[in-house]
């Protein structure tokens, strides 16, 4: 209780400060002087009014505490039931209004308990408002009579007072003796006349309106009757018609509502198709260039170009900008793959798979076709035409890309057809690698191809839910299978060659999965090499399968990107192969050259610089020359200037040199070069040198713009100029050498001094104040928010506690004081009464003595 009061007092003290007395008595003011002025500190207690506050406290206590104290022994309680008496939130006026309303309600309730029919009557001057209204109406409808005049006179009398006098005077109206009353009377008359006229006008107006409305009503009734009559008839008619629909009407309606054939796009001409294809390629190329320059990140951050006026400018975009995604999906091919299936679905609807398979069977097996039921024929033709479409389109594409491959295509197609006829038509997607292997083993390349193709078709993602996962798995298995084919002796490269296309198609369908599985394959390769390096300090050249995987990576993914999740690791892997694996045999040279070739292919578009490539090529040239004491160039790991393998490619047989035919290096023999005869080995050596020189030439063309090309090519140049000519290579190679040297000479040596880009000027330092969160003074700082809050609460509690104790103490003092005054009052009363008694007794005694004395005197 004390606490509550204390709070109230405190709040009042705060409130008081806001409105200080205008001219306080200086003797009542206590100023708490501050020792130092502190900036930013709020001073709340610099001025105190002890007298006033004490008086207020006392007053408050007398109102509350004293009252309680006085009523401490009383058991009956006075409750004030007036509405909102102690509610301070309601303003007095409102309070009065509410009370009035309540009172009225109470009255009303009491009355209406027994008067069920009567509503509350509103009155004006004691008259029911309803009556007045009625009366008015009647008055209006009446014509002008004396009565009305009387009435108005009465009205005026009542308005202007002294009605009785007026009435009497009215009787003697014609006599106009007295000036004053007359003039007043005239005035009144005028007023009356005016009001009458007004009233009349109003009345005529109202009459007119009434008349018009009545007329309208009557008119409306007539029309309404007519209308209602008509509609009912129509309804009847309809009811009659419904059970017997007219065939013609139905026909008309059906024709009207029938889906009209939508005008389809006309077939595109070949030129248009080519143009479209070109546009698509152009767009993809532009995309590729952007990625090559590594601008992707900036682009992604870019805001959408269009900005609506309602844009909140908070960077929120509702739809993802998926245009890029579409373009990457290689939409066209996908669509072509998807479309037939979708249409099939749309047309066949719920037709089962088996039926469609039957169709396919019938369309391939010629003899069955004639037996096929009629109802299926149109579907068949659909399927046929679609397939043909696909084939045609594919062909067109191929023609566009590689017109010279046409005859081989046809040939292949024929073989494919042959393969097709021998195989079953449906294949379940393999669940494990072994399954796929058993499916494909023992079949020819064409058959394998058909099997893979059919697996894909039977499990197209649009046919069933789980097919996506199945085909994703198929990609992984195919990859593994290709690795297996490559490690076989002899490697089945022909099949791989064909399977790559399938792999590419699958990759287009599932880019995410494809990339991750290729990544894992590469990781295995690198991991193996790393382990070997850790154990032996060097690694052997990886097998053909790794080379194939690297090549496939280049086929499936764009190699020119600045950063690519698959290609960049592949590049690191190739770099490791070229730097960490020492060349110990001829097949290592072939493998290394193949990796070099891949490197060049990878960077052919982006024209990036590959140091390992040049090192390796220089090394290959080195091992093609006889050893020298002082080479005049420096070799880089893994090549050594002297040693067992430093003359690996040296050919000394003159005859072999002359018979050397220029041809490509055979990849399939990479694992089995040891069995070759000496002549063949020599030929391969020469081929290696030739490939190496060709690659150098390519490098030279590619790196022509690099600023330090001469330094890069220096060892190669020395080798070509001084060492290679001594070997007596065939004429072709010598010519190649010369042309490379010529090209090197032609490369313009232009060294432009480097200049940094101009950086932005540093802005002047501005001395704007640093804005930091204002921390309250006198509070422990530097702790966490919870800790601060806790401390604050503890502090507050302490303060409140102190205040409460003080208040209680003051309460007690006050009570004690009151008790003391009470006691003193009681005592003084008693004293007074005793005195009074004594005095009365004394007077009594005095009187009595006086009487006695008188008696004696008498």
């Amino acid at each position, binding site marked *: 209780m004390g606490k509550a009061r204390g709070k109230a007092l405190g709040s009042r003290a705060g409130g008081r400060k806001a409105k200080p007395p205008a001219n306080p008595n200086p003797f009542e003011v206590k100023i708490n002087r501050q020792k130092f002025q502190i900036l930013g500190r709020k001073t709340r207690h610099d001025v105190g009014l002890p007298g006033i506050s004490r008086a207020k406290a006392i007053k408050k206590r007398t109102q509350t505490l004293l009252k309680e104290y006085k009523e401490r022994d009383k058991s009956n309680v006075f409750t004030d039931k007036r509405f909102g008496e102690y509610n301070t939130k309601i303003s007095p006026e409102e309070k009065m209004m509410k009370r009035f309303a309540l009172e009225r309600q109470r009255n009303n309730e009491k009355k209406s308990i027994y008067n069920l029919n009567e509503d509350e009557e509103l009155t004006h001057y004691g008259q029911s408002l309803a009556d007045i209204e009625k009366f008015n109406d009647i008055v209006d409808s009446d014509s002008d009579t004396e009565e009305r005049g009387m009435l108005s006179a009465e009205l005026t009398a009542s308005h202007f007072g002294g009605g009785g006098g007026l009435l009497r005077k009215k009787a003697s109206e014609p006599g106009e003796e007295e000036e004053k009353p007359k003039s007043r009377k005239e005035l009144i008359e005028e007023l009356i006349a005016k009001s009458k006229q007004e009233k009349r006008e109003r009345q005529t107006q109202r009459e007119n309106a009434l008349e018009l409305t009545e007329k309208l009503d009557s008119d409306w009734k007539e029309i309404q009757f007519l209308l209602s009559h008509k509609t009912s008839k129509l309804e009847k008619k309809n009811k009659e018609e419904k059970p017997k629909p007219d065939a013609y009407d139905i026909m008309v309606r059906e024709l009207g509502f029938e889906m009209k054939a939508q005008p389809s796009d006309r077939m595109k001409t070949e030129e248009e198709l080519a143009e479209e294809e070109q546009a698509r390629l152009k767009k*993809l190329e532009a995309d590729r260039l952007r990625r090559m320059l590594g601008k992707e990140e900036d682009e992604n951050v870019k805001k959408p170009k269009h900005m609506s006026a309602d844009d909140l400018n908070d960077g929120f975009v509702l739809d993802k900008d998926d245009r*890029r995604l579409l373009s990457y999906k290689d939409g066209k091919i996908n669509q072509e793959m998807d479309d037939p299936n979708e249409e099939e679905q749309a047309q066949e609807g719920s037709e089962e798979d088996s039926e469609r398979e039957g169709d396919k069977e019938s369309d391939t097996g010629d003899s069955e076709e004639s037996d096929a039921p009629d109802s299926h024929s149109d579907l068949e033709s659909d399927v046929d035409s679609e397939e043909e479409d696909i084939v045609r389109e594919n062909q067109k594409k191929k023609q566009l890309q590689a017109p010279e491959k046409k005859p081989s295509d046809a040939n292949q197609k024929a073989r494919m057809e042959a393969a097709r006829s021998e195989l079953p038509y449906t294949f379940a997607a393999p669940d494990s690698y072994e399954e796929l292997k058993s499916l494909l083993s023992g079949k020819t390349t064409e058959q394998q191809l058909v099997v893979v193709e059919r697996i894909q078709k039977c499990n197209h993602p649009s046919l069933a839910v789980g097919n996506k996962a199945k085909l994703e798995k198929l990609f992984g298995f195919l990859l593994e299978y290709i690795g297996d084919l490559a490690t076989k002796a002899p490697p089945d490269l022909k099949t791989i060659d064909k399977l790559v296309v399938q792999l590419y198609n699958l990759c287009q369908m599932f880019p995410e999965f494809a990339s991750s599985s290729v990544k894992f394959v*590469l990781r295995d390769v690198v991991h193996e090499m790393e382990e070997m390096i850790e154990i032996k300090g060097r690694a052997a050249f990886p097998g053909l399968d790794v080379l194939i995987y690297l090549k496939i990576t280049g086929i499936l993914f764009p190699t020119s990107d600045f950063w690519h*999740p698959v290609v960049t*690791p592949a590049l690191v892997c190739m770099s490791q192969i070229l730097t960490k694996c020492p060349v110990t045999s001829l097949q290592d040279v072939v493998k290394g050259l193949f990796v070099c070739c891949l490197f060049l292919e*990878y960077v052919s578009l982006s024209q990036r610089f590959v*140091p390992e490539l040049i090192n390796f090529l220089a090394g290959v040239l080195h091992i093609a020359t006889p050893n020298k004491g002082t080479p005049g160039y420096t070799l880089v790991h893994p090549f050594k200037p002297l040693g067992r393998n430093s003359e690996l490619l040296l050919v000394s047989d003159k005859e072999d040199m002359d018979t050397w035919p220029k041809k490509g290096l055979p*990849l399939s023999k990479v694992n089995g070069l040891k069995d070759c005869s000496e002549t063949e080995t020599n030929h391969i050596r020469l081929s290696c040198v030739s490939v190496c020189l060709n690659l150098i030439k390519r490098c030279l063309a590619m790196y022509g713009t690099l600023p330090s090309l001469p330094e890069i090519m220096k060892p190669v140049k020395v080798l070509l100029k001084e060492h290679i000519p001594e070997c007596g290579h065939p004429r072709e190679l010598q010519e190649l050498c010369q042309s490379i040297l010529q090209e090197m000479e032609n490369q313009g*040596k232009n*060294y432009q001094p480097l200049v940094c880009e101009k950086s932005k000027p540093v802005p002047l330092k501005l001395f704007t104040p640093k804005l930091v969160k204002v921390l309250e003074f006198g509070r422990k700082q530097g702790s966490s928010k919870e800790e601060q809050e806790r401390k604050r609460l503890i502090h507050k509690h302490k303060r409140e506690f102190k205040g409460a104790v003080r208040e209680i103490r003051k309460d007690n003092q006050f009570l004690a004081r009151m008790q003391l005054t009470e006691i003193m009052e009681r005592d003084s009363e008693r004293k007074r009464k005793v005195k009074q008694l004594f005095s009365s007794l004394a007077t009594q005694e005095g009187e009595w003595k006086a009487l006695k004395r008188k008696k004696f005197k008498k």
Partner: protein
Amino acid sequence: MESESGAAELGRWLEAALKSRSGANAVFDILGVLQSDEEDDILSATHTCSRLFGALLERGELFVGHLPEEEAAMAGSGSALQKYKVWMRHRYNSCCSRLAGLLGHRSFKVKELALCTLMKFVQLEGAHPLEKSKWEGNYLFPRGLLLSVVAGLIPTEVDSSLLISRFQEYLEHDDVRYHTMQAVVDLVARVTDTHQQQGVPPMFWNNTFTLISAVSLPRQQSDISNFYVKHKEMLEKWKVTQLKEHKHVFEKMWFSFLKHKLPVSLYKKVLVIVQDSILPHMSQPSLMIDFLTNAYDIGGAISLLALHGLFILIHQHNLEYPDFYQKLYSLLEPSVFHVKYRARFFHLADLFLSSSHLPAYLVAAFAKRLCRLSLTAPPEALLMVIPFICNLLRRHPACKALIHRPSVEASGLTADPYDMKEEDPAKSHALESCLWELKTLQRHYHPEVARAAMAINQALSPHEVSIAQLLELSPYEIFEKDFKKEESGPVPLEFLQPQGLLGRRGDLSGEHFTLD
């Protein structure tokens, strides 16, 4: 069965030999078993010997003092007890020599047990010396026995690193370590003497190195308190209690080892540990200078390794080494990016070039040379060397001309003024050149390298980039980093359809390779 009965028999003999002097001839039987070829027999016989002579040593039943010839003692006049003691001592000696021989046994178990037994004898002999002390407070230690142990530890033919690692626990003891070091000095001298003509086999050096690299001295004098042989009181004047003497012997040991011609692989091993475990324990580290300068002049990886030792000598021991930076400059070869000690070398090079008092021409030459070499470097080295070069440029603002030369009259050079072949950095004209190599590397195939090289496009930021964590970068780590990097969008795909494995028309691999 046989071994069990053998063990029981051995037990009986042991009991007989220890019970009374009359049963002493059982010792012959035990020693006979010790000579056998069976591994189990040897093991149990060794155990028995250990118990037998251990007990005898403790009882003091072995002859103390200079041992006379057996025959002479037997024949000569003397008490029976005296004769018995002399005889027993001879048996003890033959047992010890047999055990030392067993250190070269083919089975590791036997070797280990022999070693432990011998070390037990060393302890007991130290406590009950078999020599007469010549004066009061004479320090006695069974040096002869320990010498035979150490000789067994460093054989000339077989690798004994396992046994040495077992021996390492004894090296914890200060006295054993002290005397082992002395023994090594003796042994090295002896072995080189005997193998003067045909040359010391490299296995001996390997074993010796394994043993002496296991020796590590305590840091403070107060740490010398752990003795294998417990004496009642350790006198201050004994050499074995003084760290100074330990250091002296340590130094002697290493010099006796290093003064010989060592195999190249050992050179590398020595140089790897030289700054951590050899130089701090030497009383006069500057004596190592000959060794280190010789190693530094050898060239290649050994030079790289000798760098650190030399640096410590220059830095802490006031060594004056002329042309240090020129030598360092000549160490920069293309192979420096491919050797195993790349991280170490660049760490040191960073240290050497961190001084801001180096002349600008020198730093420029280093930067330019590194740049030139980086044209042949693999990506993991490039990721380290490009920030390295940038740091050099940051430290020496005069070298910023290498990447920023706005003066117009120098434009249109026909060749790089820098001379790669010049040995002297002062004459290499590096300051007149520019780092075009970095410009080239901006087109490196690896995105991180290209990005790092892009740093020179803008004015360099004033803060150096720490290369500490880049030093040990391996290609596998780079691969893993790329592998784990998350791609935000969809994976970009190739949009041109392939015709086959060797790709489309005009592809290089199709031109130069065929499938069959």
